[in-house]
């Protein structure tokens, strides 16, 4: 097969790969950012490579989050792992438990002797990814939290005040009813990420536990507990609202149909990641968008507490040379510098990870120019996080999310009631957590 060498050579020459000098240490970075975010992600590597000549970071798109993570694990098992891999937040439990496979960020920084101040980071963002002693395990890269978007034109047509988003679930119901009965739109509200927005964040926002042992931060022997009365009440309501046409279910996982339902003005309110802001604005071609915080039940004690993040972080895999690890440390240092962070935050809508980057964005007047862009940060930092609202950490959580979607679907189809659905989630979820504990114990 001679032709393949020829083709490889010609392909390589077409793409004009930057020929790196032999002295440079190559750092492989696998990421899951497709589309425009992918371009912005790769631009970060290019910018870092331009600042120094010792290391060259080579980013490589590896498919969806799940594909990237499994690809990296397969590569690790074959001894071909990259230095850095981007892992979504629900993979955190798996990565943390793999002690021989990862290098915690705090240790990496200490080994490399890079000046690194953990207190510079926003606790609400970094807290999700620290060990019980508060040491940072992975580098937050793209973090966001669910917020509420609404269609001002529909609000106006329904006789609602376009400047007042609903703040409580009672208002969501009332507004939705008015939207539907006035004929302003077909449905009141829809939501992406049912599991993330309507169960996990819902629990944190109402200061309700998701699981025992500080939502799993305390150890592998944790158990799920989100079948409490507050969550049951909310799911019961969602099922009733779906039945009455006030709420529209948008599918499992990310709920891909939610965006189209909102953009086509079928639904007046959308609950979606704060990082989706740019996309929402770009696709809302025929109407004005307003932004608000997630709604809460005002008769629940402690609500609203604070919401938790989602998104992905960068994990360092072991096996790289000392030089490579030093390069990774330098790269992370570069990523967390205020200018780079502020730029990334403003370009993408992801949360800034340091206080300095947030303040820099304020100083640059970004939030005045983009009303609603700081809703996510205010919502995340509304109160000092409690045991219930720091985040969550369970093994096999990717599968547990699937279980949550399934039971929610069963609830909506009328096969079970809310209590039954959440009990089933807890039971099936705990079995998955036990399996994980067995495999990693």
């Amino acid at each position, binding site marked *: 097969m001679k032709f393949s060498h020829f083709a490889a050579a010609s392909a390589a020459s077409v793409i004009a790969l930057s020929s790196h000098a032999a002295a440079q240490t190559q750092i492989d970075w696998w990421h899951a950012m497709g589309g425009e975010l992918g371009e912005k992600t790769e631009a970060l590597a290019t910018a870092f490579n331009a600042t120094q000549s010792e290391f060259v970071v080579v980013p490589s798109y590896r498919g969806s989050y*799940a*594909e990237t*993570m*499994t690809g990296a*694990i397969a590569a*690790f*098992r074959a001894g071909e792992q990259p230095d850095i891999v981007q892992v979504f937040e629900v993979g955190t439990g*798996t990565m943390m*438990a*793999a*002690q*021989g*496979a990862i290098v915690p960020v705090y240790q990496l920084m200490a080994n490399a002797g890079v000046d690194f101040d953990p207190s510079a980071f926003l606790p609400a963002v970094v807290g999700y990814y620290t060990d019980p002693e508060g040491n940072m395990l992975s580098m937050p890269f793209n973090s966001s939290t669910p917020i509420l978007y609404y269609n001002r034109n529909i609000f106006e047509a329904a006789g609602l005040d376009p400047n007042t988003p609903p703040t409580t679930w009672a208002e969501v119901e009332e507004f939705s009813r008015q939207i539907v009965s006035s004929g302003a739109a077909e449905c009141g509200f829809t939501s992406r990420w049912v599991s993330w927005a309507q169960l996990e964040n819902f629990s944190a926002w109402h200061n309700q536990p998701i699981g025992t042992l500080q939502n799993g931060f305390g150890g592998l022997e944790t158990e799920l507990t989100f079948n409490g009365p507050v969550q049951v009440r909310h799911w019961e309501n969602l099922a009733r609202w779906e039945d009455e046409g006030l709420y529209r*279910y*948008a*599918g*499992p*996982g990310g709920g*891909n*149909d939610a965006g*189209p*339902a909102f953009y*086509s003005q*079928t639904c007046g309110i959308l609950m979606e990641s704060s990082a989706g802001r740019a996309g929402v604005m770009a696709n809302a071609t025929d109407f004005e968008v307003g932004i608000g915080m997630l709604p809460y039940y005002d008769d629940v004690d402690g609500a609203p507490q604070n919401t938790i993040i989602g998104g992905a972080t960068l994990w360092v895999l072991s096996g790289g040379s000392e030089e490579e690890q030093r390069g990774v440390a330098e790269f992370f240092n570069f990523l967390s510098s205020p200018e780079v962070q502020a730029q990334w935050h403003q370009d993408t809508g992801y949360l800034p990870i340091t206080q300095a980057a947030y303040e820099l964005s304020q100083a640059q007047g970004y939030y005045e120019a983009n009303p609603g862009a700081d809703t996510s940060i205010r919502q995340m930092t509304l109160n000092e996080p409690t045991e219930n609202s720091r985040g969550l950490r369970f093994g*096999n959580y*990717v*599968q547990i999310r*699937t279980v949550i*979607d*399934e*039971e929610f*679907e*069963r609830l*909506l*189809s009328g*096969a079970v009631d809310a209590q039954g659905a959440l009990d089933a989630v807890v039971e099936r979820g705990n079995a998955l957590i036990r*399996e994980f504990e*067995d*495999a*990693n114990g």
Partner: protein
Amino acid sequence: MQTKRTIFGNKGLPYLLLAPQLIITGIFFLWPAAQAVRQSFLREDAFGLNFTFVGLRNYERLLDSPEYLNAIKVTVIFSISTVILALGVSLVLALAVDRMIRSGRAYTTLLVWPYAVAPAVAGILWWFIFNPTIGIMPYVLETFFGYDWNHLLTPSDAMILVVVAAAWKQISYNFLFFVAGLQSIPNSLREAAAIDGAGPFKRFWTITLPLLSPTTFFLLVVNIVYTLFETFAVIDATTEGGPAQATNILVYKVFRDGFVGLNFGSSAAQSVILMGLVIVLTFVQFRFVERRVTY
């Protein structure tokens, strides 16, 4: 197993002819498959850092789990429906093309080229077409038939969607083989039957269908294998196995549990069961079907 009445006598040659296929199969299929068998008896973490031998526990857990039994049921319904739809539609189209003297080739071209769409992309297209909010099909169903399509919540809608999408991908393929099969049936046979007074339907049942049986058998096997093993791109892009596992077929479950869930032990056990299933399936087919197939 069937062979020729007469054969060549060479001793070494057949091995030489088989060598490339066997080497590739051995390295890239049998070896990984053996690994899967090994993994199915282990419990290990995702990175393979520590593992314990657990005997048959992965299998016991599977057979105890209602999700797995549900996946079996879903697979049977999905496979049978898809195979019938895909074979039926393409046979009808092939028969129609076979009647055409001048326009046959034009129709063939028009029917075959959509086969070029990648499954990953076809999934996206079906997602578009059946999207409850912006899709054209729910709109048509609602406007003309008053049917409220929602495959996100109604299990039967979801099943119809994945069956249609999976069958669509296979129609062109089956069509191509049926056309080739039909054209290899000697015209003289059909003419003779027509002279004997057999009408078009009688001729189809007594002449065409039996003579098509090698093609049909081949397609049957290929289509079953297709529905069982090669449909996740379609399912992944449209229903993701939902709602509430209503379209979670066996191979999608292997994929989800192993590739997404990183539960390699259980996923490997499921693969092994699937391998066993196919061995049995093909064995049965060879024993019972091949005897009845006329060549």
